[in-house]
């Protein structure tokens, strides 16, 4: 059963230079427990789509359904709690003046999760779940490394006990060794908690290894969708092929896959 459905959704921004069609008639669905990767270049509409899923933007037309019911454009607290976001840059998305514990607790206070005395325990459990020492809740974001901060970003989303997590380029600001650990953590959490991910990224190599299905965006339109296996072994759309063949690769097997795709374009 699909947990999230996007049905014929469009978003148009009206600017001084005329209308900009950021998302055009997009339909897709995400099943419970699935990881759907949304890929495309900058300006392709992937972040606009994410903002509509989160309720930050209202669609110009079309509708969104969550767990069998329509999602109103003015979200109820329950909806906001159930669909959480992990942002790209953990340094700019955490308030520098709050301790990380206070940042994580904010969601609990907003949605009235648990009783007041038990909330610090929930915060500590969330930190523990992402592999950080619970005592770290008293520290400021500036005293943490990039990888630790991104773990805080994940803990903040998890503390609200969401059904869906929208991950917006969660590892592209991280070093490659740190990225590998954080991606493994995200995968483990998805399996152990039955979470559903909408994974927004331009890094096709990451997508290959974390996603179940892929949706490829170009200029606001969905150009191709399919299982990760199918998209990488037999991409139909020339744009998908060009995206895959632009990935910088390290080993020879990858090079031959890339070359075989480049021949087809």
């Amino acid at each position, binding site marked *: 059963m699909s947990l999230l459905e996007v049905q014929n959704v469009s978003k148009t921004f009206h600017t001084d230079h005329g209308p900009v069609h950021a998302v055009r008639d997009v339909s897709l669905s995400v099943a419970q427990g699935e990881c759907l990767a949304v890929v495309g270049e900058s300006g392709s509409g992937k972040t606009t789509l994410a903002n509509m899923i989160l309720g930050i933007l209202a669609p110009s037309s079309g509708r969104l359904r969550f767990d069998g019911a329509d999602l109103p454009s003015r979200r109820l607290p329950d909806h906001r709690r159930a669909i959480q976001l992990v942002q790209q840059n953990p340094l700019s998305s955490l308030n520098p003046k709050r301790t990380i514990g206070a940042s994580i607790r904010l969601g609990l206070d907003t949605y009235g999760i648990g009783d007041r005395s038990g909330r610090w325990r929930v915060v500590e459990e969330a930190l523990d779940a992402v592999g950080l020492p619970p005592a770290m809740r008293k520290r400021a974001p500036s005293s943490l490394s990039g990888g630790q901060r991104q773990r805080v970003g994940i803990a903040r989303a998890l503390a609200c006990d969401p059904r869906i997590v929208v991950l917006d380029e969660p590892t592209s600001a991280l*070093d*490659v060794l740190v990225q590998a*650990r954080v991606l493994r953590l995200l995968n483990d959490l998805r399996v152990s908690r039955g979470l559903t991910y909408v994974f927004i990224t331009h*890094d096709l*190599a990451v997508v*290959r*290894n974390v996603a179940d299905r892929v949706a490829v965006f170009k200029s606001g339109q969905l150009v191709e969708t399919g299982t990760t296996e199918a998209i990488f072994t037999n991409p139909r759309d020339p744009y998908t092929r060009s995206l895959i063949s632009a990935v910088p690769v*390290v*080993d020879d097997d*990858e090079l031959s896959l890339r070359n075989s795709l480049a021949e087809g374009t």
Partner: protein
Amino acid sequence: MSPVLDIRDLHLSFKGYGGLSEVLHGISLRIEQGQKVALVGESGSGKSVTARIVLGLLQETRTARIRGAVEFDGRDIGAMSARQRAALRGTEMSMIFQDPTSSLNPTFTIGRQFREVLGRRDPGIGRAASDARATQMLAEVSIPDPARVLAAYPFQLSGGMNQRVMIAMALANRPKLLLADEPGTALDVSVQAQTLHLMRELVDDHGTSVLFISHNLGVVREFADRLYVIYRGRIVEEGPAAAIFADPRHAYTRALMDAVPRITGGGLPDVPEVSEDFLAPLIRHEEDAA
């Protein structure tokens, strides 16, 4: 013939409240004429400060303590005056930064900024001569309509276009050495691939030597002839790029390679973030092994 860049046993420390803290523990690196050398490492490994020492910028920082030899084209940078070092920048050595749009000045047209760059080498250059030279350079980076670009402000151009402009500017004065710090990481992958390809062709044509700083092994593989892997202020492995990619021997280099997700799949790698083995001594590959 002397190498274009010869760094020998370079140490760098910063003076802080808690005394001196050393960030480069004696690194050595050589770039021959026309060679493309990559310095690869994670953030905080010391790769960008190395570039800033070569450019003569860190020497102006009062808290920095620099020891060791840095020779550019046979001349000792450490023995130069601040003025002499400044005269090298933009003429004999130039730099390309990570984000092209934020490293161009938004208040001047591209043509005006070209004139400033060309004026470093030739202070009396007039507008007509500068525009002619700039047009020729923009054509070399495959910009279809140079006149339009010269009249434009950076924010009117796309990121990929600005990146090409940066490459054209950096090579306009025919520098001996080009320093490229993570060029194009702010751009989309397909644009990044195109600009890297273009940059490689241009530096090959001009015979420019390059110090390419990156954390992305995939990008390095497509660009560099030689590789230096840096970890916490120490070079841990060096040699021809092909030899290191075929047979990475240092534990840190191996971890870096394993950590890159593959487009052929195979799941997420299980590599440690830190390990005692990463501190093992330098491994040098034979020059003729490539």
